[in-house]
């Protein structure tokens, strides 16, 4: 609790991190309140070929798409998809990556070696390439995008947690706990995990942004949520055929991606400054 108050108050002081937090808050609000923000519940899915490719203004705030769908409504509902993908994919990555990193980093024997080798393999190839392969293997759907992103993102957490755990392992207070006879699992859970929490939180925030970008790229390449899902990346991809005349087509979804990713990055940066143990340690000094 104390930590939370601390974070919030520090965030408030860091203008750009605060902006990031606001953007993300806005995203969450938009996602939750989507039905309240559009004229009727089906607005994001309705198709009226008669009014296709209308420029912004009047009835359609952001214009209409190639099927006559309301881009405004679609962008609003797209927030739900984006948020779901980001939260679930990063969440699953956390659930895989953190324990693996903890175990590999703390025990460090052959099991750790093997686990790290496996994650190295995942890191050796660009995430999007593997994600494309997996998404394609499983077929395009939101669930599969999430799965593809989770399967390819967890090594990032593993790497991070592994490195942090390894250096924490040499910290005096961990050594001291070992010397006190505290069992390893207890050390991992009560000492190491809370102490790697900060970098994990930072990574999570940045990872959200990164995941949203990758998910959008998959959508753009036609591997994301199938139509007519109002997925931002897909909307941008659709727009390409209609450029330059329908210049507005890609504008709103692109800006949405940009803002949201920026929000997560700003927040992540801010949290890094606030939570980074090095910075904190320097602030508190030796005594």
């Amino acid at each position, binding site marked *: 609790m104390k930590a939370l108050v601390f974070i919030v108050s520090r965030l408030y002081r860091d203008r750009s991190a605060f902006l990031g937090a606001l953007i993300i808050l806005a995203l969450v609000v938009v996602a939750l309140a989507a039905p309240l923000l559009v004229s009727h519940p089906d607005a994001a899915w309705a198709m009226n070929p008669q009014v296709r490719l209308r420029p912004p203004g009047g009835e359609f705030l952001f214009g209409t798409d190639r099927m006559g769908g309301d881009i405004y409504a679609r962008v609003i509902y797209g927030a739900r998809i984006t948020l779901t993908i980001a939260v679930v994919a990063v969440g699953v990555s956390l659930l895989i990556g953190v324990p693996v990193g903890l175990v590999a980093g703390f025990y460090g024997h052959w099991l750790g070696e093997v686990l790290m080798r496996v994650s190295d393999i995942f890191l050796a190839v660009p995430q999007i390439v593997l994600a494309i392969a997996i998404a394609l293997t499983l077929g395009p759907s939101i669930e599969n995008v999430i799965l593809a992103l989770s399967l390819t993102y967890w090594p990032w957490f593993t790497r991070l947690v592994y490195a942090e755990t390894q250096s924490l392992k040499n910290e005096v207070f961990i050594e001291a706990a070992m010397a006190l006879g505290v069992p390893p699992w207890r050390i991992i859970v009560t000492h190491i995990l809370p102490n790697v929490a900060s970098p994990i939180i930072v990574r999570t925030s940045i990872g959200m942004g990164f995941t949203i970008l990758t998910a959008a790229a998959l959508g753009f390449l036609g591997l994301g949520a199938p139509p007519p899902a109002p997925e931002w990346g897909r909307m941008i991809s659709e727009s390409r055929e209609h450029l330059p005349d329908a210049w507005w087509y890609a504008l709103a979804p692109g800006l949405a991606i940009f803002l949201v990713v920026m929000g997560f990055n700003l927040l992540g940066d801010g949290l890094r400054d606030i939570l980074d143990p090095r910075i904190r340690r320097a602030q508190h*000094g030796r005594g």
Partner: protein
Amino acid sequence: MPLDERHAGDAAALLRVRGLARHFPIRNALGLRRGSVKALDDVSFDVRPGETLGVVGESGCGKSTLGKTLAGIHRPTAGSVLFEDAEIAPLQGAARRVVARRLQYVHQDPGASLDPRWTIRRSLHEPLIVHSGLSEAEREQRVRGILREVGLPPDRLDSYPHELSGGQQRRVGLARILTLQPRLVVLDEPTSGLDVSVQATVLKLFRSLQRQFNLTYIFISHDLAVVRMMCDRVAVMYLGRIVELGPTDAIFKDPRHPYTRSLLAAIPRIGGPRVTDGFVLEGEPPSPGKLPSGCRFRTRCPNAAPQCAEADPPGRTVAEGRVAACHFA
């Protein structure tokens, strides 16, 4: 016939260390083993109940390695450690952790041994949770008692380590270990980095706690003045070896090993003439990864003779209760 130190010893010893060694592998860029650092090499000594055994030596000579190996943080490469008449060197895992209760290691900066994210209370409860079946209330009572002993007000229980001063952190660190009521405590450079005035306070605390809890100390330090004041006996280490061991007074008055002599000569003596105007030990210790042949000290030794390059002198009893590892001691 010289007495073989390996098999003799004090029958009443609390801790009996024989031929203890700890080597660290040196790896090259590919992670392949290239050699090893003999941080601790064939070390033998006894610790009697209730005494304070000082361990001195230059940086990197293996003092901390000795302490950590005894405390089970490092696994010994070779040798035996009898603690309370039980062999603990080969123990591992849970069996070793049981011993931890009675044989504790205090890091150079006990403040650093506190998890920065935990309140003092939580840190103090932890060893009791692990080692005792006490209820929360009983633990709290024990913790408060100990806290009083180390001279900290109980309102500090809800603080975080960074909210305490260095001296206070050390007190908490000690309190944490004392909750387990250990017999033997290894104090690794317990005053380094402290100002003299704080150092005095801390040393005083060690003394009173020793009396109070009937503790036995292994007191590691590079500060000879402190060792002289605190310890009953002193072991002088050089490059992983104990080169001289004996009662403090005897060693300080009449050092037998040339290294001990040089070391003592280098300590400034306040109020007297400048020691540096007199004798100064030349050169620097070689790397523990590349030990010289024969006696390890011969590269800097003022008395080095050809035989020193050939044979590594074993520890010999040179006087009542005194051992030195020098051909000429």
